[in-house]
């Protein structure tokens, strides 16, 4: 199976080509089957690879496909790396990807751009697979840029809406800022190690001293790339706006897969980070700040998708916190569980929006549990999972992260648990406002309420099951379980793990788990008493808010800050350059040269008198000049 790995990205690519070229002529059913089938095929192979890898002793396979670039001393093969980390990501991408494809056949069934949507989705899966499969940084970069492109295309999928187009542009441009860091990091890696293949780089890096300045620089540059793609402070503002895309896109790209590319990259390069403690600290601090910051914004949002978007930013922050404190397995674990429950929540939100005829404002929902019970139950399970309720998946992964944070620095733990409390609160606020109480929408919407078709509910159920039991593959020792994931991933983090020894007594772990659960219960209680018992509904648009509430509701005016600090000055400079440099200087030079040549031409033309006497005269003069200058 491992030999067949090239088929994994190839299948979605073929799907993209077929749908992209002929999709217009095919029926929606066939487009859906091709699109989903391609991903299902990839998933089947990925599953085969996973089990083969699990059974075999050799945990690292490099599959050389062809020689890609060779110029000077730079030689880059196009080859894939199969190891536990990449095979796990293959499963997440193709598995969740397949479910979301199926969901989309229902969700997008009325859209005229149906085939275009599936073409983009398949292309996205292709690039994402390339990103995790490549055996060197350049292939990762190709995938990295490719998913950025697909994200742009899908956010602006309804391109007739200017606001959506702007959101797409924002995502693309902000990602480019991060990409620059990533690219510089790759270049620095090449300069330092003379190669960009993972194997060569990590083997050499292992023998370097901890705290090496170059390593730290590389790690920080790569992290800048991760900040952009994984929406960390200060490059996070594109992700909430990215909710302009169709909901399955939000689920697949902006929650489950693409945004985790940054985590994958750092987990892949773990040795570089382990050897640069300063960079690790930066990652941890940015991570926890993002987790907390986004959680506070999530408290006051009223758009169902925006709440989930900020919760994604916040959860990504936890993953970076994990990476920063050396809990690489924890980060990957959380990527996985988060992929389950966040995809579930987004698809559930999609189902709600579908039922509400496109309404996304939770102030206009309420009491939906009567009408859409499947969606309701699955959504509740997802909410419990993200809140970290025992024994749902989120509990184990979040617990692992917080335990490592405690060990590293108590403050990090405290901030982390504060964020977790807010997460629980805003998620339950969302849940209660949507599904409990009285219906607050229009009469027409109420009349129209209906459960989504099977193609949408079945993925919800599958994801709900995964969200519930997904955590069982990583039960900590303290609970007398086996951490299968840690075992499986251990070869990848081998060189890092003996440098980062963990020792936390079981008693402390129980204490931490108890604290987390207590905090969660308190948060649920508050949410329940405010939004169910008192039936509070968030203030309507335009109502005067408390200063603090207003600050959070307006997302700390960060977008406005960026607008006036960066966008506006850039536009001003651009305009100045356009008016002065381009219009006056550049155009002036160009037009001036043009006029000069035309003038010269009209003068030189006069030399061509047509008079032979003159021609001969010039010849003779020239000959005299030549002889004179050359011989005397």
């Amino acid at each position, binding site marked *: 199976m491992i030999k067949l790995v090239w088929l994994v990205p190839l299948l979605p690519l073929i799907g993209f080509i077929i749908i992209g070229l002929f999709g217009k002529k095919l029926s929606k059913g066939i487009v859906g089957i091709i699109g989903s089938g391609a991903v299902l095929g990839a998933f089947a192979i990925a599953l085969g690879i996973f089990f083969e890898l699990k059974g075999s002793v050799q945990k690292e396979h490099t599959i050389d496909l062809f020689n890609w670039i060779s110029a000077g001393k730079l030689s880059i093969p196009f080859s894939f790396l199969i190891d536990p980390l990449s095979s796990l990501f293959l499963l997440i991408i193709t598995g969740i990807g397949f479910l979301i494809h199926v969901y989309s056949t229902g969700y997008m069934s009325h859209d005229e751009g149906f085939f275009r949507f599936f073409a983009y989705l398949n292309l996205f899966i292709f690039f994402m697979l390339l990103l995790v499969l490549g055996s060197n940084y350049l292939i990762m970069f190709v995938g990295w840029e490719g998913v950025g492109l697909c994200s742009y295309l899908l956010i602006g999928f309804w391109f007739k809406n200017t606001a959506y187009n702007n959101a797409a542009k924002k995502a693309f441009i902000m990602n480019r800022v991060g990409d620059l860091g990533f690219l510089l990091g790759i270049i620095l890696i090449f300069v330092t190690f003379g190669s960009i293949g993972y194997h060569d780089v990590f083997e050499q890096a292992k023998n370097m001293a901890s705290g090496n300045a170059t390593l730290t620089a590389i790690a920080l540059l790569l992290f800048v790339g991760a900040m952009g793609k994984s929406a960390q402070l200060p490059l996070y503002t594109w992700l909430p706006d990215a909710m302009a895309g169709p909901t399955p896109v939000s689920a697949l790209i902006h929650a489950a897969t693409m945004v985790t590319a940054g985590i994958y990259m750092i987990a892949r390069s773990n040795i570089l980070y382990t050897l640069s403690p300063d960079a690790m600290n930066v990652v941890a601090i940015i991570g926890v700040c993002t987790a907390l910051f986004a959680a506070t914004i999530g408290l006051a949002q009223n758009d169902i998708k925006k709440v989930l978007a900020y919760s994604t930013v916040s959860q990504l922050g936890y993953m970076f916190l994990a990476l920063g404190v050396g809990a690489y397995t924890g980060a990957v674990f959380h990527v996985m569980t988060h992929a389950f429950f966040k995809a579930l929540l987004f698809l559930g939100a999609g189902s709600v929006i579908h039922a509400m005829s496109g309404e996304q404002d939770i102030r206009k929902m309420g009491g939906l549990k009567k009408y859409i019970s499947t969606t309701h139950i699955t959504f509740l399970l997802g909410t419990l999972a993200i809140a970290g309720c025992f024994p749902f998946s989120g509990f184990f992964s979040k617990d692992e992260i917080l335990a490592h944070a405690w060990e590293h620095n108590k403050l990090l733990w405290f901030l982390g648990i504060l964020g977790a409390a807010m997460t629980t609160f805003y998620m339950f606020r969302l849940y209660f406002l949507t599904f409990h109480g009285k219906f607050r929408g229009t009469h027409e919407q109420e009349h129209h309420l209906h459960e989504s078709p099977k193609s949408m509910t079945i993925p919800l159920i599958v994801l709900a099951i995964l969200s519930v039991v997904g955590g069982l593959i990583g039960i900590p020792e303290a609970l007398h379980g086996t951490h299968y994931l840690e075992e499986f991933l251990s070869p990848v983090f081998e060189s890092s793990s003996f440098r980062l020894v963990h020792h936390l007594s079981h008693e402390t772990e129980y204490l931490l788990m108890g604290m987390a659960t207590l905090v969660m219960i308190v948060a649920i209680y508050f949410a329940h008493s405010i939004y169910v018992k008192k039936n509070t509904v968030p203030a309507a648009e335009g109502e005067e808010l408390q200063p603090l509430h207003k600050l959070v509701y307006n997302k700390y005016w960060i977008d406005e800050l960026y607008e006036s600090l960066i966008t506006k000055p850039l536009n001003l400079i651009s305009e100045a350059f356009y008016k002065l440099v381009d219009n006056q200087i550049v155009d002036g030079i160009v037009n001036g040269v043009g006029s000069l040549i035309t003038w010269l031409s009209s003068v030189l033309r006069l030399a061509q008198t047509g008079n032979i006497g003159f021609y001969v005269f010039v010849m003779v003069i020239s000959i005299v000049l030549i002889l004179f200058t*050359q011989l005397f």
Partner: protein
Amino acid sequence: MKALILLSSLGVIALLAEIFSFKKLLYPIVLLGLITTFVLNMFDWDTNKLYFKMMQFDNYAVAFTAVILVVAFLWFIMAEGFFKEESNLTDHFALVLFALVGAVMMVSYTNMAMLFLGIEILSIPMYILAGSNKTDVSSNEAAFKYLIMGAFATGFLLFGIALVYGATGSFDLSEIAAAVSGGTALSSIFYVGVLLMLVGMAFKVSAAPFHFWAPDVYQGAPTVVTAFMATIVKTAAFAAFLRLFSTTFSGVSETWMQTVWVMAALTLLVGNITAVMQTSTKRMLAYSSVAHAGYMLLALLAANNYSNSAILYYASAYSIGSIATFAIVNIISDAKNSDGVDAFNGLSKTNPMLAIVMTIALLSLAGIPPTAGFFAKYFIFTSAFMAGNIGLVLIAIIASLIGVYYYFRLIIAMYFKESDGQTIAVESNHKIVLVIIAIAIVALGLFPDYIIGLL
């Protein structure tokens, strides 16, 4: 040598056709003869035969002969109308064929006597052909100017040959080269001789400031004759120029390098700049032809191993591009009685095929990838750059930027101006050849190695 004999025989057959009245058959005979000549010429490849210490068919000679024959074949097809008039038909054939004989001699001589003979055998038919449109005053004027100026230049060339002979005691190129590198001081008349020969050759390739004849003659002569002069004559003249100066006189390069440098710069600037203001396409192409001589002078100046193949490639690319443009100008001006840029307005609507071929040819002349013209310039510039002539390369790049302006003026006229709606009838054999030329231009640009690797 086979090419030389066969072409001469074809010329004689053309004369006999008048007497034995098989005039009608002459056109196919000549075309077939050219193909045969081309094939037989290829058998001389790698033989490197020396004939009587007068001519040597080395690969240089064979390759240039081949280029000349291919261009002549294309030219014959495009110039079919030129061979349809009843009177003087056989004369036209014979003159062109003998001119080709002269061209072959010019690319293969090893003796200055043969050089002179070749030049004269080529030039005298051209004087007559330039005036072949006997009722047209400007054609007469062109012939007359060409003859007088040509005779003047030949005088200098002959004087130069005489002086070189006087200094070295030989007409043979290898003996002269031996004398140059012999170490014994040469008489000063030798240097005067070299410079006078340089002047003679510069006139033939229409390098400034000896280019004044070219625009007038090119415009006055019938368009097909102009096409012949701009392609075959120029290719042969450059081959002869390079053969003499890159080997025999390379030992005294300090005598003539500076002059060639100045001539190249002048030719590039004068040719390209003056072309900008021309309203007649024929005259514009005449100046463009002058300008292209400037680019080829760059390779002469470089005079390294690279420059032979660079000139061969440039001459091929330039010649087939020019044949196409002149052929289309001929078709348009015949149909519209005007060779102004306006005559091309809206050609893309009325005759899209002509417009596309013309565009490809013009892009090639302007040096835009992926056409042959781009690599032609690239190779020339590289060879000059490697020889250290960075300043001249800069001038050449500026000159080719100016060139883009006037070539694109025609393209803009064809695509963005309103036409008068008149569709021009094009004979099918012309169409076929034009398409073949267009394909060849692109193919040469995509696979330049096939020519550049020859020498």
